């Protein structure tokens, strides 16, 4: 969404009009932000570094979801299952073909995207709620397939396989600190990618489909084609995210948090962050990860106070906090944190005339 600009702020050239970073001071802020983030392993705690790794793959998965749900308006309940696919494809390519993780990543994106296309196919006939059902089916069918087919390669009933440590030549990315730089680089790449997707012909077609599909079709947008493209991009990004998660945890499997709940949490992150905004996935993922860690701390502390109830206290707060946050955001700020941030910026700019 175009920012509201003050009167008199015009673009004087096409270069200026096309620029993502519009002002010189924004370059400075951006460089500073990247430098500060890139040095996190130097000054931050181990917790901060691991959390940044977790944040990175979550953000990429939510960015994918943002394309299909935020921009194209198709509800997807299968994002976690596509992450699982990505993790498996990457693990298999690296283990059995001896590819480096970085060379495997484009193939992972392609493969997961194709799987996403299969479950996007019902969008030819159905939309809205019915499509949510098709992706829900993906969320059950994919984990089942990984457990019951090609058991030699996919781990069979153990439901998990080991994932190698990524390496460039002799250099192993075998600690959270080293892995951090893979995460950072990939997040920057996907962010530039999604930002550019959303402001080109493709992204505008997505928004047209979301806002009114019949009108979009009359304007010459090929509905089915663009919905499939949205599904492909969403699944491809989920695949990259899944590969990153698998390589950082060094194991991938159906029981390790790739279920329907994870898909719901990814959707919740998107809503809390802001649907259809490029800032949204960052804010939403960070907010929800913070809430989850807070819930764990609260659960542990209360568990120390009431030791006989510790089992239930440990696991109960995460869904309570997340559910409450999601519901409150839907009621009070359905456009998410990104919209709140825009309001803050606008009120700062309009000072002293803003309320």
């Amino acid at each position, binding site marked *: 969404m175009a920012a509201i600009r003050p009167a008199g702020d015009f673009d004087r050239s096409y270069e200026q009009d096309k620029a993502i970073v519009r002002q010189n001071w924004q370059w400075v802020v951006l460089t500073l932000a990247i430098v500060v983030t890139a040095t996190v392993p130097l000054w931050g705690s181990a917790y901060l570094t691991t959390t940044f790794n977790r944040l990175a793959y979550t953000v990429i998965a939510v960015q994918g979801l943002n394309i299909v*749900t935020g921009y194209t*308006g198709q*509800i997807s309940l299968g994002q976690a299952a596509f992450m699982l696919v990505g993790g498996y494809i990457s693990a298999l390519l690296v283990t059995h073909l001896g590819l480096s993780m970085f060379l495997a990543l484009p193939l992972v994106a392609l493969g997961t995207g194709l799987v996403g296309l299969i479950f996007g*196919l*019902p969008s*030819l*006939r*159905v939309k*809205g*709620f*019915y499509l*949510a*059902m*098709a992706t*829900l*089916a993906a969320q*059950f*069918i994919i984990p*089942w397939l990984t457990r*019951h087919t090609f058991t030699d390669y996919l781990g069979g009933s153990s439901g998990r396989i080991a994932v190698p440590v990524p390496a460039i030549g002799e250099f192993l990315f075998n600690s959270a600190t080293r892995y951090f730089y893979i995460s950072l680089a990939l997040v920057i790449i996907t962010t530039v990618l999604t930002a550019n997707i959303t402001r080109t012909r493709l992204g505008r077609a997505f928004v047209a489909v979301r806002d*009114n599909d*019949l*009108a979009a079709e009359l304007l010459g947008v090929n509905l089915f084609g663009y919905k499939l493209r949205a599904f492909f991009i969403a699944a491809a990004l989920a695949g990259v995210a899944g590969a990153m998660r698998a390589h950082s945890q060094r194991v991938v499997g159906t029981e390790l948090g790739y279920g*329907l*709940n994870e898909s*719901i949490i990814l*959707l*919740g992150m998107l*809503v809390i962050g802001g*649907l259809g905004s490029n800032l949204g996935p960052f804010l939403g993922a960070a907010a929800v990860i913070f809430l989850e860690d807070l819930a764990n701390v609260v659960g542990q502390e209360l568990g120390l106070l009431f030791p006989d109830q510790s*089992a*239930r*206290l440990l*696991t*109960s*707060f*995460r*869904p*309570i*906090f*997340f*559910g*409450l*946050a*999601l*519901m409150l955001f*839907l*009621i009070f700020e*359905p456009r998410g944190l990104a919209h709140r941030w825009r309001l803050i910026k606008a009120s700062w700019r309009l000072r002293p005339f803003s309320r």
Partner: protein
Amino acid sequence: MNWPLVPQQIMTGILNGGIIGLIALGIVLIFKASEVFNFAHGHMVMVGAFLTWWFSGGGGEGSLFNLPFWAALLAALVVSAVIGLLIERLALRPMTGQPLLAIILMTLGLSQLLEGLASIFFGVQPKSNFPAPFSAGEVFRFPFPGAFNDTIILKKTLVAAFIVAIVAAVVFILLFQRTRIGLAMRATSENHEVARSLGIRVSEVFGLSWAVAGIVATLGGVLLATLTGASLSLSTVVLIAFPAILLGGLDSLPGAIVGGIVVGLVQALVQASSAIEVRNSAEIAPYVLLLIVLVIRPEGLFGRKRIERV
């Protein structure tokens, strides 16, 4: 196919399917009255089962309540009706007129909240001491030539659950089709504003339909729990009601029951296969069915085809 098993599996499938159908009915009821597809229904089912367990003194010594089964069920029904009212008032009324995505997400958030609350109030361990009118060993035996051992064996619990499910379904369908309350619900689902101008209190109708959905969910939960015990995973088990709903048609109450029975049959027949690979697929067979329905006939067997106007 393992033919001697088939008659037995057909009977079990139909009986299980009746219970799935009752759960599906609760979702369709809400959808017909307020156009909300309730993803939290599974969690309402789970909470209903836990409530019954709790009122009947399942917590052991020092429980607050120690009611006989029927009284516990009644208390749970009342509480779940109140929960339904609260959900409507606090969570879904502010969402009136919001887009479909927001409403679906609201019910998903609700499901997470209910999951957390249930685990904090009732604990995370499954409760196997669920009060049941029959013990697990009591069975009916019907002679049936050609079946395994020439008999069909049906658990009394399962048969009773099926009968209760079908009776409840008929009662709720009659409530919807034949009474003034049901008429008000149908009018509201057709068009809120017209219903209001005809003197129907739309907010009361919404509240009432959520209360009824809470009751239906608890009934379904108790029936399931008499078979498997009460546990947090009941909410996941209930997800196979979704294929049943889509198969029967999203806005057809009898369709929900028929869809439920078909899903139960499909699952049971897949389990009767002689190939282990096919038997293993029983848990996803309903979802494969769902995909087929979506591609071939999205409006379901008995649903109305929707014509969209801009």
